[in-house]
């Protein structure tokens, strides 16, 4: 089975981890990633609340919006964190941390 993760485009930044594990990627979230997660979730909750006013389902609509936002926000933050570890996004912080460890 081919489970190799070689991309068609070469990473333009230093590769910290070619194939980071889930836990490592989540642990690598930085402040900006958490801000992304929070903002996207907040937008979704707000939109869910506002769109639930007219049909009178503010609560459930807010919860559903929150779920959608949480999923989207987490995926976006994960994408950024993984991209930085794999060298597809600017990753000065990750490189500095990896050097410090060595």
């Amino acid at each position, binding site marked *: 089975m081919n489970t190799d993760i070689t991309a068609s485009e070469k990473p333009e930044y230093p590769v910290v981890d070619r194939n980071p594990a889930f836990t490592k990627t989540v642990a690598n979230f930085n*402040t*900006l990633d958490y*801000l*992304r997660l*929070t*903002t996207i979730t*907040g*937008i979704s*909750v*707000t939109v869910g*609340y*506002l769109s639930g*006013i*007219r*049909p*009178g389902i*503010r*609560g459930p609509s*807010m919860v559903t919006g*929150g779920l959608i936002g949480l999923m989207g926000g987490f995926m976006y933050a994960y994408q950024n964190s993984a991209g930085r570890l794999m060298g597809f996004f*600017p990753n000065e912080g990750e490189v500095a941390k990896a050097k410090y460890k060595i």
Partner: protein
Amino acid sequence: MAARNAFRYVSRRLSSSGKVLSEEEKAAENVYIKKMEKEKLEKLARKGPKPEDQAAAGAGGAGSVADGAASAQASSTPGVSNDKYRNYGVLAGLVTAVGAFGWYSLSKDKKAEEVQD
């Protein structure tokens, strides 16, 4: 013909609450809405004739996004919003604003550093 049908469909969708209802469903909905309103009024009456307008005005100042919500709950203390969902909504709006500002400022810093390099 098709265009006219489509226009009618779209306008009807927009005019109601996003759903095309048959006459029977509309009637049933109206009865349900009337029932709910009656229950709400009864609830209000049971809690006593307290001015809930003040509470609504107090909460509206924090987040303009939450305006337009008909707060049907009477407040026990004037000046405190007792509408739970609305409070959550306003809180979410504030968190969004703060998060967006942080996101914006952080990504701007990074760009400035790159230019310096």
